[in-house]
């Protein structure tokens, strides 16, 4: 089967259109199932009471934030290395969804922090790294917004995303380092509750739901980007005809 024809935006466009409803519906179903397992089946936690139930959205959001950044960098890199326009467009389409999951992770993390540690923001290693990840997303989006030429925007974004992806483990490590240095006087951070069966199941189901949602939403955005570029290209051609 010749898959390469789908590398063309024009060919991929209708395929994406057919895929979106399936992903959207399955995602909605999994959200419902995940919430059910998380709220009706998983027991109340011994240490944190019912407040822990935030993890069913917080942890999947945090994981998605990371996955999507890496995925974005991979697509951008492929788009740059192989001059594959669709791949670069995919990277641009992922960026906002990734940033949103990062924001969601930060907000739900803060809402989890208040009842469990007494403060909305405790500058622990994980939340601080997530905050920096948000800055990296914002940088990528800002850079692409500032460049009018799509070719340059795609490639510049690729360089930035790749530099970012290499730096993420370094940043994460340095934040861990920073945190252990300063932790003595500050709040003792309780870790995640020990994961019992239904809790883990709920988290994984919600993760799958977030993943499918992301695919649907990114494909919708990708189609918008394909249309926009096509329009600008034909407008450009007409003006210069």
């Amino acid at each position, binding site marked *: 089967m010749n898959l390469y024809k789908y590398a063309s935006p024009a060919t991929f466009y209708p395929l994406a259109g057919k895929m979106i409803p399936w992903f959207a519906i399955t995602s909605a179903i999994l959200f419902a199932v995940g919430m059910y397992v998380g709220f009706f089946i998983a027991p109340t936690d011994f240490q944190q009471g019912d407040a822990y139930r935030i993890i069913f959205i917080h942890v999947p959001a945090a994981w998605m934030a990371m996955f999507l950044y890496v995925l974005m960098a991979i697509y951008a890199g492929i788009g740059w290395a192989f001059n594959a326009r669709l791949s670069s467009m995919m990277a641009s389409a992922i960026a906002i969804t990734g940033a949103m999951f990062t924001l969601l992770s930060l907000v739900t993390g803060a809402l989890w922090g208040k009842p469990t540690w007494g403060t909305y923001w405790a500058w622990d290693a994980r939340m601080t790294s997530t905050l920096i990840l948000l800055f990296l997303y914002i940088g990528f989006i800002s850079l692409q917004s*500032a460049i009018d030429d799509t070719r340059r925007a795609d490639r510049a974004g690729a*360089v930035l995303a790749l530099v*970012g992806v290499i730096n993420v483990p370094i940043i994460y*490590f340095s*934040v861990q*380092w920073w945190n252990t240095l300063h932790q003595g006087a500050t709040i003792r951070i309780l870790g995640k509750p020990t994961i019992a069966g239904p809790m883990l199941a709920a988290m994984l189901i919600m993760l799958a739901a977030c993943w499918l949602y992301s695919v649907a939403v990114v494909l919708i955005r990708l189609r918008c980007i394909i249309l926009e570029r096509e329009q600008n290209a034909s407008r450009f051609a007409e003006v210069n005809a």
Partner: protein
Amino acid sequence: MLRWIVWRDLTLAWRRRADILSTVFFFVIVVSLFPLGIGPETQLLRSIAPGVIWVAALLASMLSLNRLFANDLQDGTLEQLLLTPQPLFLVVMGKVLAHWIVSEIPLVLIAPLVGLQFDIPGETLLILVVSLLVGTPVLSLIGSVGAALTLGLRGGGVLISILVLPLYIPALIFGAGAVEASIIGASPAPHLYLLGAFAIVSLIFSPWATAAALRISLE
């Protein structure tokens, strides 16, 4: 070729001495703002000094990055440099080295004076200088990637800051950490080693990334 680029940039910078001095003045002013905002209590100032001085160094470096490529872009030299048979990353390394000498070394030299304002003990002042000496190359190297990516774009300095400041964070953590360790009597060595490692990694990867970014920006 490398030597020629460094020499050329240094000469051009010397002719515009005011630019260099303004970076130093900015550094000193920013550092002085903190006591004004927080209060002159010595104990407090000593505890915030490492972070404040390092953040000010980051910000001052940010401002000087525009000069790295913009002037050469304007007078057409940059395009010529891209056409030479010499590998572009050597050209980049030359410019980054010149930038470090011109924009960062002055900060390193004035840091002890600034440290005195915060009542930092003598031995720690030495660690401060060492940490900046090891850390400022990182600022120039990573900053050059941002400068190359944003060449000629509107939004200028703020855009570079958004791109580059998050990437500076490990240097900030290790650099300020070294100084703080020295203040409380712990060994700054692990911090300095990590900072050095980060500098070496930056040295290996950023000229290549900057060269790629330059080609992308100038096509």
